[in-house]
């Protein structure tokens, strides 16, 4: 028994190992490790000038060990070392009450709620426009070029203005930021859904015709189910865009909180560690949102019997 079991576990072990190194896990881990090493090296290099000044003001006696340790522990480094950012993240995420203004979770929640509201509105608007475009040729020909042109406008650049102007008529809080997120996230959804609604083959459309299906029935029984994979793919692009929109929308509303205002405050007061921790928090948010959509996609498509 043991003699048989042993090789099989050995095969199992090498199996996992080979699968990981032939898959993406090990390469990604190595690349991430390399990035962290480069980050440490760069923070020594970038912070060295300041550290030399500190030592020059001191008694002039210093070792390379002290020098490196010094570059890793400055108060306002040009590039904070990864562990400094990690400590700051730990202090502001775990070490603070989540309702406190010093808590990064509090700011992340402000940004996240604006992102989600804007994303929901953008997805709804995008699906609506796509339905209109698919069902009306005049809409298709006149609207689609303008939708594409609307994205060559650097709307993000005027996001702060939208917020300030809406604030001047008394609209503050979530809605202005959410509107910017909406504008950024509807475009991928329109383009993806137009493609998705048109993805059924002619032969399937012909089958619906032989069933004497109305255009309403064709839409709900054929076009809409066929478009769902496209919907999820474009939602992933859209949710990332709406997070960017919410963050940039927070830039002018310094006092109101949110990751964007943390960025701005950090840049005003030279708090680089704070900037980097806000950036990493934004990265984590965006990763979580995309992951959530991926999970929803798996569940929904599996329920619908897709083999994807």
């Amino acid at each position: 028994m043991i003699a048989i079991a042993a090789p099989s576990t050995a095969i199992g072990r090498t199996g996992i190992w080979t699968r990981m190194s032939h898959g993406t896990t090990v390469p990604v881990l190595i690349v991430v490790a390399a990035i962290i090493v480069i980050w440490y090296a760069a923070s020594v290099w970038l912070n060295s000038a300041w550290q030399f000044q500190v030592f020059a003001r001191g008694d002039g006696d210093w070792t390379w060990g002290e020098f490196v340790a010094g570059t890793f522990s400055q108060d306002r480094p040009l590039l904070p070392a990864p562990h400094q950012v990690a400590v700051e993240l730990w202090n502001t995420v775990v070490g603070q009450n989540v309702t406190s203004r010093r808590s990064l979770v509090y700011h992340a929640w402000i940004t996240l709620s604006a992102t989600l509201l804007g994303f929901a509105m953008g997805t709804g608007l995008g699906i609506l426009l796509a339905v209109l475009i698919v069902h009306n040729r005049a809409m298709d020909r006149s609207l689609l070029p303008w939708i594409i042109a609307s994205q060559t406008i650097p709307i993000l650049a005027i996001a702060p203005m939208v917020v300030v102007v809406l604030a001047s008529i008394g609209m503050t809080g979530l809605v202005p930021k959410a509107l910017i997120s909406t504008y950024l996230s509807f475009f991928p959804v329109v383009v993806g859904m137009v493609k998705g609604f048109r993805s059924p083959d002619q032969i399937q459309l012909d089958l619906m015709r032989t069933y004497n299906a109305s255009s309403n029935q064709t839409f709900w029984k054929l076009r809409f189910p066929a478009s769902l994979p496209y919907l999820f793919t474009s939602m992933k692009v859209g949710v990332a865009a709406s997070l960017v929109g919410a963050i940039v929308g927070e830039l002018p509303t310094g006092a109101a909180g949110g990751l964007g205002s943390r960025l701005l405050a950090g840049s005003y007061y030279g708090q680089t560690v704070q900037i980097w921790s806000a950036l990493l928090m934004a990265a984590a948010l965006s990763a979580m949102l995309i992951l959530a959509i991926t999970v929803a996609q798996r569940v929904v498509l599996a329920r619908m019997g897709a083999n994807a």
Partner: protein
Amino acid sequence: MNAGLVTGAVAFWLVTWAINEWLVRVRARGIAARLINVLVPVLFGAALLVLWEGLVRGFNVPSVLLPPPSAIWARITVSTATLWADFYQTFIRSVLPGYVMGCAAGLAAAIAIDRSPFLKRGLLPVGNFVSALPLVGIAPIMVMWFGFDWHSKAAVVVVMTFFPMLVNAVAGLNAASRMEQDLMRTYAASYWHTLFKLRLPAAWPFIFNALKINSTLALIGAIVAEFFGTPVVGMGFRISSAIGRLNVDMVWAEIAVAALAGSVFYGVIALIERGVTFWHPSIRGGKT
């Protein structure tokens, strides 16, 4: 409220809508069909402008909220010199160098990691992840590193354009099929020959896709970076200082210039794409 202006604008909109409905049903060939293709969106755009003007004037919307298009146009014609200076600082000095450097670096990195399957498997997921991040957030850091002038804006643009180009170019370099690569091998073509004669041409559609995405990203990056500190010229500076004084028509004038610059930038790249990838089905089919 001025009912005449509102009804006039709405009537204009309905009439152009009817004309468009009629135009898309006309069966035309050759030049007439192309003319219709251009005319339909142009009519729609004109209707939007008239509707905007009519509603804003008709309902007496305060110009702080939304100025009518005519007021924006008046502002543009009055302050062309300022607008040109801002355009020069932001577009010519920040966006273009950053765009060229970022795209070139992305392409070079793609070609470099393409030789190693290990790096490709490791870097691609990371690159995909990074290109979904809110990278504009690095703007304050870049301003801190490279100073207030155009260098920091170009640096933001480089970082923002690098990853979309990397991801797309790596995908593009794998677009040539096994069969075609085997053919190059039977010709005893070297790595570089295969790269330049087969794999890069096969990758052009992907690379141009990245170039188009980046054209918008670059403009956004430069303008947002100017919010964090800038010399007293530039589109982002003008927008943020004009908002401070609620000088909204100036803001809209800058937006119009930015939109025009963005569209022309995109259009030029699309034109180059048509020339370079003339063989691609999407271009031969007459669709863009």
